[in-house]
């Protein structure tokens, strides 16, 4: 019994408390699960022995094996998304193997899906009072053109607004679950992979889009590092009621990702590879008039307005069709208590902007070993190495697309051999062709994600689980601006910040399940979680560079270092009760402590409760009601969560370095420390129902929620006679109210044709309910404002002067002796009589609703077609690109000015301040995208057998192939301020999302 000795050793090592495991009479169940209509194997289906924690998942060939099943009569059930669950009672004989196959029938109802929700014992959706969205791994892995896990969620979950912020390869994704829940804090959800909390930072180490002085958001976010091919399942916990287990880190919801595990049986090999072509969906429509306009004279060297000139559209030299390759191999299997999954992936992609590219190499090993009937250990490791080559965009004066919209087309940027360089840009910082040829902005990430897990199940009703996880990465950004690239005086600069980040978490959970009688069940969990996030940033930089220099050096060198650490400790207890398999109650408490809270506020309590009532199990439901509703349940939940205060050290009165008379000194920060700082706190009420119709061929999931987030941290002005100017205090509040609706239907299910659809609709209303004073207008970045009574981030800015009838007022503006009749800026008269430029709320970047429509067709047994439409409705976008195109005479509309079709300088450097009348540039950003379309052809298995493969698919797919929108810019989805909490919906020379087309092959052996 070497095994037992090992268990003893391990346990003794941990607690010096040896345990003897006893033997028990057990048998094995194995079998295969297939689709009843197509006969195809169903992989990743859950098979469980009811009343125990035993279970397995089907392998790609549909097979499963469960060992250690106590002998006697057992209920074996199987569940998989999109199929009706089945339960079969079998009799297991000691030390023998029983074969039990299942043939599953399609169903729209998903209530029986197993979810983990962060507790030790999995449960089914039907038992929970809150909604948890589940996305199966194949949808993530096979989503066309998808390179990141968060990207694959687009159009798949309700209650979420998911945006890709920039179309550069490796560009970031922003997710808002049920609205924005903070003002100064982050708004992105917490990501957890296999129980390990992972970093999703989007901090800009070098400014490539927005300037560092504004939100400091990077083009990328760190979820980009993980390979979607390894994902088995994603669970999205949207609100406080669901996410309360993560306590003071869960205000923005939690996205839990589970990676693939091996199943008992022979090794399953899979290989897939696809080639992707990326192209821009649209280009800027430029002024190509043969005659010079006003800005051509100012910047382009044209002799006079109207003079014939040559124009240059350099977009051909900027945009290209980028080719990418995505290849993934995996092997999984298991025997003798060992199960394993090994995956390796390569992803390489050339962006639609020349010189931008991204590549990622990763491998993953998930191992698990049973040491005895009671003890199981597991190890997961994921190594990632990636390189993204970005180019500046947005408000960066060196931005390539920025240059396009700022530079009149009469300027020829081509390399000038006589000057020996690219000519300097007469308007902006840099020549875009020079930036693409000679500048570089790579981002390199090396990351290791690991988890160690041990489960001890002394008896089938109790589980003790220990998990230790670490997410460790190094991120190196470089930004090289070569000497003399922007002017003869510019001596070059290089920045090379390196960030080291380590997140560690340690979870212990004890679960006890009891069933005192068949109608009553209890499940009790106690848990403890410790997290430690440590980030260190070293910023090295050099100036006065030598030619060809690519590393930090040169005559002037600087380096700075900063460090941040957050530690949290959480205790939780949860009780779940089921009555008669129809009424389910959940109650839980979470005590969280955090190093960022003031000492007096250290311990925070977050309670939650949920109720699920499955009406279709009631005897009175049978008959008339059940003829209409094949299933029906009501649910309600309430819960509280917290958010860490922005600024981990805001509770301290900090001193900063200064220098006086050559001596080092310290002065107090003008921001007073707040020893009473506590988390931002959210309370959510949620309710809804799930109803199945027509024998579960149609299902409606409907939810309403009402969230109030209070104690939002804001900067409060202090009396300056205190020696301070401000202090962070918990003072603001906001609400998010919304509705979520999903309709899943199985429209046709025939042996040679089936059609399933999923329609989702979500609407969220955000409202700021309290700021420091009710008249506060907190302006973020350009136009996004936080105003009491308004949704977060409304656009606030200059408006047109209007006539009493509401039409735009024109006024004569005299320019160089010429009187031009132009629209003018609106003014306000203050109480004091002073006349100021009027500012108004001019738009709202928050969508009125989002919706998606997914269709899956099976044509015969070998052809599958899926189509996903994804739309956002009623949101405004601030088109700063158009503002600049018009101002600098770059836009097509300026041709009208040159031809005399409109008043001179209606657009070009408009002297009436048109560029400050922001109202003009707020556009309806409503769009519908053909997000995904994929055609899969399964090759003839008989033919494949000759190569030893049992499945092979040819796939032709597309992503973002078509966008329907009235928005005049390149893409209404992007945002210059990336993951910013408040600044949303700003398009300023931001790379549009590529239109992607791909062809791929996949094999399973």
């Amino acid at each position, binding site marked *: 019994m070497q095994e037992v000795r090992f268990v003893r050793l391990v346990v003794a090592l941990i607690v010096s408390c040896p345990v003897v495991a006893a033997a028990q009479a057990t048998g094995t169940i194995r079998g295969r699960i297939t689709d009843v209509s197509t006969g195809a194997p169903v992989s990743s289906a859950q098979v469980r022995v009811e009343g125990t924690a035993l279970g397995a998942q089907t392998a790609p060939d549909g097979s499963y094996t469960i060992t250690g099943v106590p002998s006697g009569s057992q209920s074996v059930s199987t569940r998989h998304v999109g199929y009706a669950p089945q339960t079969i009672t079998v009799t297991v004989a000691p030390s023998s193997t029983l074969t039990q196959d299942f043939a599953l029938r399609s169903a729209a109802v998903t209530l029986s899906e197993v979810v983990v929700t962060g507790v030790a014992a999995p449960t089914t959706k039907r038992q929970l009072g809150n909604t948890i969205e589940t996305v199966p791994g194949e949808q993530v892995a096979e989503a066309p053109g998808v390179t990141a896990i968060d990207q694959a969620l687009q159009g798949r979950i309700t209650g979420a607004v998911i945006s890709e912020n920039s179309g550069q390869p490796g560009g970031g994704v922003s997710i808002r679950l049920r609205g924005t829940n903070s003002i100064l804090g982050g708004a992105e959800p917490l990501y957890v992979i296999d129980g390990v909390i992972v970093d999703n930072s989007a901090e800009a180490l070098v400014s490539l889009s927005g300037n560092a002085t504004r939100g400091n958001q990077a083009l990328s976010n760190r979820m980009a590092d993980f390979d979607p091919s390894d994902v088995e399942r994603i669970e999205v916990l949207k609100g406080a009621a669901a996410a309360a287990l993560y306590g003071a880190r869960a205000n923005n919801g939690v996205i839990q990702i589970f990676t693939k595990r091996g199943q008992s049986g022979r090794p399953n090999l899979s290989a897939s590879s696809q080639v992707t072509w990326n192209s821009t969906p649209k280009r800027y429509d430029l002024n190509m008039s043969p005659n010079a306009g006003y800005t051509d004279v100012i910047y382009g060297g044209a002799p006079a307005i109207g003079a014939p000139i040559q124009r240059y559209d350099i977009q051909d030299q900027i945009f290209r069709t980028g080719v990418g390759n995505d290849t993934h191999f995996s092997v999984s299997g298991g025997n003798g208590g060992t199960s394993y999954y090994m995956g390796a992936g390569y992803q390489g992609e050339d962006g639609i902007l020349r010189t931008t590219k991204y590549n990622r190499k990763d491998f993953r090993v998930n191992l698990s070993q049973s040491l005895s009937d009671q003890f199981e250990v597991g190890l997961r490791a994921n190594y990632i190495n990636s390189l993204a080559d970005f180019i500046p965009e947005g408000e960066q004066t060196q931005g390539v697309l920025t240059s396009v919209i700022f530079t009149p087309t009469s300027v020829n940027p081509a390399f000038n051999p006589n000057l020996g360089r690219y000519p300097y840009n007469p308007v902006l910082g840099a020549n875009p062709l020079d930036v693409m040829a000679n500048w570089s902005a790579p981002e390199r990430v090396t990351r290791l994600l690991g988890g160690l897990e041990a489960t001890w199940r002394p008896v089938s009703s109790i589980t003790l689980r220990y998990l230790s996880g670490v997410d460790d990465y190094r991120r190196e950004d470089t930004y090289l601006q070569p000497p003399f690239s922007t002017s003869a005086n510019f001596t070059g600069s290089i920045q090379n910040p390196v960030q080291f980040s380590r997140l560690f978490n340690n979870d212990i959970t004890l679960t006890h399940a009891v069933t*005192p009688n068949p109608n009553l069940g209890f499940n009790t969990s106690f848990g403890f979680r410790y997290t430690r996030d440590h980030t260190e940033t070293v910023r090295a930089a050099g100036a006065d560079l030598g030619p060809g220099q690519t590393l930090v050096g040169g005559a002037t060198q600087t380096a700075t270092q900063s460090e941040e650490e957050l530690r949290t400790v959480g205790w939780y207890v949860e009780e779940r009760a089921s009555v008669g398999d129809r009424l389910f109650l959940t109650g839980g408490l979470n005590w969280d402590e955090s190093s960022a809270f003031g000492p007096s506020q250290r311990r925070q309590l977050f309670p939650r409760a949920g109720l699920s009532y499955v009406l279709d199990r009631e005897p009175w439901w049978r008959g008339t009601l059940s003829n209409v509703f094949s299933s029906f349940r009501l649910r309600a939940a309430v819960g509280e969560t917290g958010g860490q205060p922005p600024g981990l050290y805001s509770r*301290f009165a*900090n*001193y900063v370095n200064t220098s006086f008379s050559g001596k080092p000194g310290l002065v107090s920060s003008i921001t007073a420390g707040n020893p009473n700082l506590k988390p931002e706190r959210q309370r959510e009420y949620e309710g809804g129902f799930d109803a199945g119709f027509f024998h579960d061929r149609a299902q409606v999931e409907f939810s309403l929620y009402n969230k109030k987030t209070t104690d939002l941290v804001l900067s409060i002005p202090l009396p300056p*006679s205190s020696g301070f100017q401000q202090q962070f205090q918990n003072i603001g509040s906001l609400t998010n109210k919304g509705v979520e609706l999903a309709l899943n239907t199985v429209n046709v299910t025939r042996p040679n044709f089936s059609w399933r659809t999923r329609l989702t609709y979500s609407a969220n209303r955000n409202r700021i309910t309290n700021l420091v004073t009710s008249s506060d207008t907190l302006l973020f970045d350009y136009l996004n404002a936080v105003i009491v009574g308004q949704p977060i981030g409304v656009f606030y800015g200059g408006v047109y002067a209007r006539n009493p009838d509401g039409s735009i007022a024109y006024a004569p503006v005299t320019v160089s002796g010429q009187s031009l009749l132009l629209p003018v800026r609106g003014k306000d008269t203050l109480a004091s009589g002073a006349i100021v430029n009027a500012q108004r709320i001019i738009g709202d970047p928050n969508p009125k609703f989002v919706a998606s429509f997914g269709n899956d067709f099976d044509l015969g047994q070998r052809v599958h077609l899926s189509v996903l439409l994804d739309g956002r409705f009623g949101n405004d976008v601030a088109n700063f690109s158009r503002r600049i195109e018009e101002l600098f005479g770059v836009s097509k509309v300026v041709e009208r000015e040159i031809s005399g079709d409109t008043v001179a300088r209606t657009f070009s450097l408009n002297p009436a301040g048109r560029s400050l009348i922001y109202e003009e540039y707020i556009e309806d950003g409503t769009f519908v995208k053909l997000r995904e379309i994929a055609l899969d052809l399964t090759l003839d298995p008989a033919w494949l057998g000759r190569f030893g493969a049992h499945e092979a698919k040819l796939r032709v797919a597309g992503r973002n192939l078509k966008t329907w929108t009235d928005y005049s810019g390149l893409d209404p989805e992007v945002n210059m301020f990336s993951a910013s909490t408040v600044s949303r919906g700003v398009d300023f020379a931001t790379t549009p999302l590529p239109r992607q087309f791909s062809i791929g092959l996949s094999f399973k052996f």
Partner: protein
Amino acid sequence: MPYTFWMTSRARKAVPIFAAFAVLATACNLDLTNPNAPTEEEVVSDLNGLLAVAVGMQGQFAQAIDDYMVTNSLVTDEWGTETKALISYQSLLTGENFDPSYLVVSAPWSASYSVIKSANTVLAGADNVGLGAGLRAGTVALAKLFKAMAFGMLIQQYDQVPIDVTTEGSLPQPRAVVMDTILDLLESARADIANVSDADLAGFKSRVAGTGFDLRNTIDAMLARYYLMAGRYADAFAAADRVSLTTLSVLSYPAPTRNPIENLAFQLGYVAGLKSFADQAEAGDRRPSYWLNTAIPGPAGNPDSVLLFLKKYSTPQESFPLYLPDEMKLIKAEALVRSNSPTTEALALVNEVRTQTSSPVDEPVAGLPPVVLATQAELLAEIAKQRRYELYEQGLRWEDTRRFGTALTTTPTQPFLPIPQQECNTNPANPCG
């Protein structure tokens, strides 16, 4: 068989395992320090930290002299605004459209209270960090001096200011009360170092004091300045008499720091001297060309004032004198005149200032002939004029307009600055009524 589980030996052993983890877990320390910056608790309990605050306090004052000078020099007849200047600067110059929410209104206020807060931190911690007697005496006297100078700057700009520095904010006190505080602080600072030898102050000088700073003379000079403002003429005379006239005491600005007046006038290009300063000088007076560049035309003004570039403070590393030797002579003269002493001695002091042609230190010299004046009024007018040319952009002109009144040819555009809007909004003592 539900609850019998607890009876099994295995189950009983599960409990201590869980408990052991729990004990391990509670050992996690959440009281982290900030690795990026020391906190107030760390600073006040550490010798090096506290001395660094004393250094920082001088830096806060040194970096605020432009805030003091902008208001003082623009509301009086010293400076004008260039075309680039902020609207608030022009508002100070013209007295029109003035608004208490302007940064120029809050800047001297905020800067002074930052200095006072630092001084309070130093004074509170001085006895707890093991400073030697000489180092302690020098550091404490320095903190009292800078606190007094910050209050002194405040009462020259605002007619009432809070004395207690608290996060909640306290009620502003009238000038006379603040003046008593200033004089108490200065006398106390003087007493702190009265019996300390220069040798014992060596540590203080090398670790805390700025280059070119003279603690004893500065304390006496400030005593002279504020006794005069308080109307205590004998004390003012005595203090001024103790100040050495052959040394300077300055705030120095070695790189990477920068003289804030140079920054304001040249780097930012907001302000320049009013040409009237040179035009209204007595023929042959050498001082206008010490302060201003009279050789070349000045920058364009807005509103259309006629300007000259500054000459003093035209380079980034130029130091700023905390007082000038001739201020002491003029204080003595004024104290004599105002205390109705015979005018002979006062006239002699005024003529010393008028006729000076050279100096061992960097100070303006007039090179004018002596005058003969008989009446008190004539003498006061002459003292006021000499103060204008001796003490240009020293932050004293505004207060002079209050003390000399009609003896001057100028009226300030604002009597005082209003209490800053942020203080009105946030101080629960309701300082703005």
